[in-house]
C-alpha cells in the first residue's frame, strides 16, 4: 500500500524568505501523481501544485515549485518570497495512475506553516 509522510509537523519562516516543506512517499508503482494542497484557517482545501511522475521537469506555479526526486521518492514544496497569506496547513497527497475512474488520494499528515512578519 502507498503511504505519504510529512516529517515536519510545523515550520516557520520570515516573511519574504524561502521555505521548503518535505514530503516522502512509498510506492511500488512507476506512474502516479503527486499533489500539494493548502488549507488556510478558512479550512478550505486548495490545490497548490501537482506533478506527474512520468515528467522529469519539476512543476512550478508562480512562487511555488516542487523538487521531485523520483528515485528517492521525495516531493518537497518550495515557497519563495513567503507572504502572510501563505500561512496554512500544507498537505502532500499521492494518487495512482489508474485506468479506473475510481481512485483515492493518499494524504500526508500535514505541515503547519507559520509566516513571521
Amino acid at each position, binding site marked *: 500500500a502507498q503511504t505519504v509522510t510529512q516529517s515536519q509537523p510545523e515550520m516557520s519562516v520570515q516573511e519574504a524568505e524561502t521555505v521548503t516543506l518535505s514530503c516522502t512517499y512509498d510506492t511500488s508503482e512507476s506512474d502516479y501523481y503527486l499533489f500539494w*494542497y493548502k488549507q488556510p484557517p478558512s*479550512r*478550505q482545501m*486548495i490545490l497548490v501544485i501537482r506533478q506527474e511522475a512520468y515528467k522529469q521537469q519539476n512543476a512550478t506555479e508562480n512562487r511555488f515549485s516542487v523538487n521531485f526526486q523520483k528515485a528517492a521518492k521525495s516531493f518537497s514544496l518550495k515557497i519563495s518570497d513567503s507572504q502572510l497569506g501563505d500561512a496554512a496547513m500544507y498537505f502532500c497527497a499521492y494518487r495512482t495512475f489508474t485506468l479506473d*475512474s475510481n481512485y*483515492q*488520494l493518499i494524504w500526508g*499528515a500535514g505541515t503547519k506553516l507559520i509566516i513571521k512578519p
Partner: protein
Amino acid sequence: DTAVSQTPKYLVTQMGNDKSIKCEQNLGHDTMYWYKQDSKKFLKIMFSYNNKELIINETVPNRFSPKSPDKAHLNLHINSLELGDSAVYFCASRRGGLGTDTQYFGPGTRLTVL
C-alpha cells in the same frame, strides 16, 4: 462562482440527533467525495460517488449514509450522532476518466457533537 459548496459551515448538535450536510458542485464533475478531518488534521476518505453509484465505502459506521439526488449533489446523512463524530467534513469533486484529475474541495463543515 463557487465550485464546490457545503452547507452548513458550522453544525452544533446533541448526541443522538440526526443531521445532514449538503454538498453541491457546479463543475460538471462525475465523481464526488466525502472526507472526515479529525482533530489531528488527518484526512480520511469516507465515500465517493460516481454517476450516482457508491464506489468507495471505507470502514465508516452505517450511521453515515451518502445520498446523491443527482450528479451535482452528494449529501451526507448522519444518524444517532456520537461524540466521536465531531470533526470537519469536506466534500470534494473531480472530473471522471483518465488524466491528471484533481479534486476540488468545498470549504468544510465543522460538526460539533455535545
